[in-house]
């Protein structure tokens, strides 16, 4: 089996994978980073969103081998030194999550969204989150959270 190496949440990792192994399964099954979820298998729901080289990527839509040499950040790597990332904090403050299953992907997508384009309007946020499905919240509080998170990130 081929070997793949990448940096995940700041740590260098190496593992053997089948050619067909998806990045999400490498993260979940080999690295035990189970915060990244599989919701649909068809790259529609966004529950598996992680950052690959700083960009939001649906990790069910990418082979682990394609991430060879990449910098990968998962939800587990977002909070630094025990304190929540401003976007995580904003989701909590605005009740932007209920069952929590879409939440890691939603937060990772939101961070990338506002990083790329700070100062988004509500409409732009709604459009920007089209690739992430939530069945619990009706999005109302997610949109509020992303707005607040963007502000707290200060356009960083």
């Amino acid at each position, binding site marked *: 089996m081929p070997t793949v190496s990448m940096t995940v949440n700041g740590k260098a990792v190496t593992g053997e994978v089948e050619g067909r192994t998806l990045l999400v399964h490498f993260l979940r099954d080999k690295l035990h980073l189970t915060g990244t979820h599989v919701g*649909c298998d068809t790259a529609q729901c966004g529950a598996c969103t992680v950052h690959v080289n700083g960009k939001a990527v649906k990790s069910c839509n990418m082979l682990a081998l394609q991430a060879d040499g990449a910098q990968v950040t998962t939800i587990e790597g977002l909070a630094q030194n025990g304190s929540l990332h401003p976007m995580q904090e904003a989701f*909590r403050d605005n009740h932007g999550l*209920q*069952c*929590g299953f879409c939440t890691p992907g939603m937060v990772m997508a939101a961070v990338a969204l506002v990083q790329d384009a700070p100062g988004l309007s509500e409409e732009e946020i709604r459009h920007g989150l089209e690739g992430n499905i939530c069945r619990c919240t*009706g999005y109302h509080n997610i949109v509020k959270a992303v707005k607040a998170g963007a502000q707290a990130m200060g356009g960083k």
Partner: protein
Amino acid sequence: MPEGTGIGASVKRKEDFRFLTGRGTYTDDINRPGQTYAYILRSPHAAADIVKIDTSKAAKAPGVVAILTGADYDKGGLPAGWQIHSKDGSPMIEPPHFPLCKDKVRHVGDQVALVVAETYAQARDAAELIDVTYKETTPVVSVADADKPGQPQVWPEAKNNVCYDWHIGDKAATDAAFAKAAHVTKIDLVNQRLIPNAMEPRAAVGDFDRATGEFTLYTTSQNPHVIRLLMGAFVLQIPESKLRVVAPDVGGGFGSKIFHYAEEALVTWAAGKVERPVKWTAERSESFLTDAHGRDHASHAELAMDKDGKFLGLRVATKANMGAYLSTFAPCVPTYLYATLLAGVYSTPAIYAEVKALFTNTAVVDAYRGAGRPEATYLLERLVEKAARETGIDRVEIRRKNFIPTNAFPYQTPVALQYDSGDYFATLDMALKMADWAGFEKRRADSKAKGKLRGIGISTYIEACGIAPSAVVGSLGARAGLYESGSIRVHPTGSVTVFTGTHSHGQGHETTFAQLVSEGLGIPIENVEVSHGDTNKIPFGMGTYGSRSLAVGGSALVKAMDKIIAKAKRIAAHLMEASVADIEFKDGKFTVVGTDKVKTIGEIALTAYVPHNYPITELEPGLEETAFYDPLNFTYPGGCHICEVEIDPDTGQTTILKFTAVDDIGRVINPMIVEGQVHGGVAQGIGQALLEAAAYDNESGQLLTGSYMDYAMPRADDVPNIAVANHVTLCTHNPLGAKGVGEVGAIGLPPAVINAVLDALRPVGVEDITMPATPYKVWSAMQSASKKAAE
């Protein structure tokens, strides 16, 4: 809004930290030592005889541990939890439902073989080598046609595919009402099939301990004790003492994770056979094919009115799709959760409803958020709207004229329920004001000036939840009681663990119940932890559905707290050398009336566990109490939803401009969580009204909407901001005054949207539209209306 952490405060959720940092533990995150993986080979046909299954090639594939088929399965079938009797007194047809098909497949996705292997990929690869010979037969798909003579038969024992033919109400009184009517409004409606689509796909891990003979099932369930009961007693014959069921973090349910599914039994059974843990996780396409679907009614209804628009009688005939088998709660959804709600908020004196439940070659249909009550509300609110149009009575006035008067509670409806409280006038008035109903015509004109069609729609609804009084549901055919249990363990140093038989899969019980107990016992909320979802920890539980957790489970906790306080008072009386009658408890402190003597609940707890100075001959040590609460009645949340839409006549696209929900849900513990529940229900209601439909091909029985590319889930830009308000009348019969909020959005909303769409389209000649009102459907309706006008 109250400050702090007690009842009525919007406390931030205790569970959020783990979910936000990826530390939640969902079933698919659980891996047991020595675990194997299961893949289920499913039927590609809607109806076929299984002629032969050849597993010889597959058995030799790498990593295969076992391949099991219906021929190997020697245990029981999945039971139905509710028995309905037909009009003639005969019991419903209850066909066997084995977790692996034995001789026939009855819907696309039916379980044909279970492959257990060292890895999931190996199990999947091996399944491709299984050679199944099918003899295809013609399926029956549409519920509207399923009982017509000459249709294919799903089960030979269910003639014309009828599971039951049931009725409720007074037929003679209803006929008499129609005989004297000045006007009768008639409507035919389809409440389309939906797929619940919790974001976490179903999963199950079965484990077997050879040393003790104990089985453990980790599963995506809303009610682990119910699964233990059904699977243990009826399917696998494992006593409760040897079967532990754990429902850890569960990623949404909406009803679809209430039911006992074949896969739960299969992994547990297989774990015993291979003596290793067996894990199965649904792919999303399996969720589409095999999660219990919702709704799927075809109805005809007639409303009789006098010359002033006062409702005299209501007649309803509904066909309800059960799918190919009976799912756990399926029989009660179109009967006791639907037809009993047909009075709605109106004082219609005579109602008669007939419901025919039919088998088809489709996935099972069972409770989905609202379960029966959305179907009843949609029917009534579309009918009342049509009645207003036909009689020329204002649509708000016709509702006011027929509302149950606020002083008429408790109110006995003609369809079995007795409503305890409500004020429909107040919720209506609040909603009209919030939605600026009076200013609508100006907004309509503004839209018209831009070439757009604007409409406003209203829905005044009621639901029955807080499920349910055991004696009542027992008399109606339920095979279980529907109480709830709660335990409170005050630890020696004063922290508290709360054990609830309800299950949180997004509802925030870890926070709401902590608020309740923190306030009740005067213990800081950070010292209160809520435990749920494990049959080895929780005494018993009926779980979470039917908006019951606070009204029933919260009430059990109140009862348990009463017992804790009663015992603690006796300990306090002993310590302070006073009579128990003189002890008062407030804010965590026990005082002797008229003195400055005081003991905190922490001191009492320590004494209870270190009973050196203790009334040991009269009282046991320890401070832990359990209570079971069986409600006296259902609870009846109600309210008014108003929707304002704008339609682009060029594309048929409907945009919801504003949505207003004023709900009477009884006592609110955490307003932030309550609003979130309404938002979520509203989004699912918008999904039903404008986007979602589970479509089967009528010829082949193939599911056409089998992925998120075909099934239109509401996304962030499909849903508007939602204005939410509460008008509280308390439930009169539970200690919290709570009614329930989980389902109100999905129940009240769809007719408000469709009434708004029709209000917008009426000026261009469109009189009817079916859900979901997609752009194509709206555009097509406009084209045919204009063609008709030109003729």
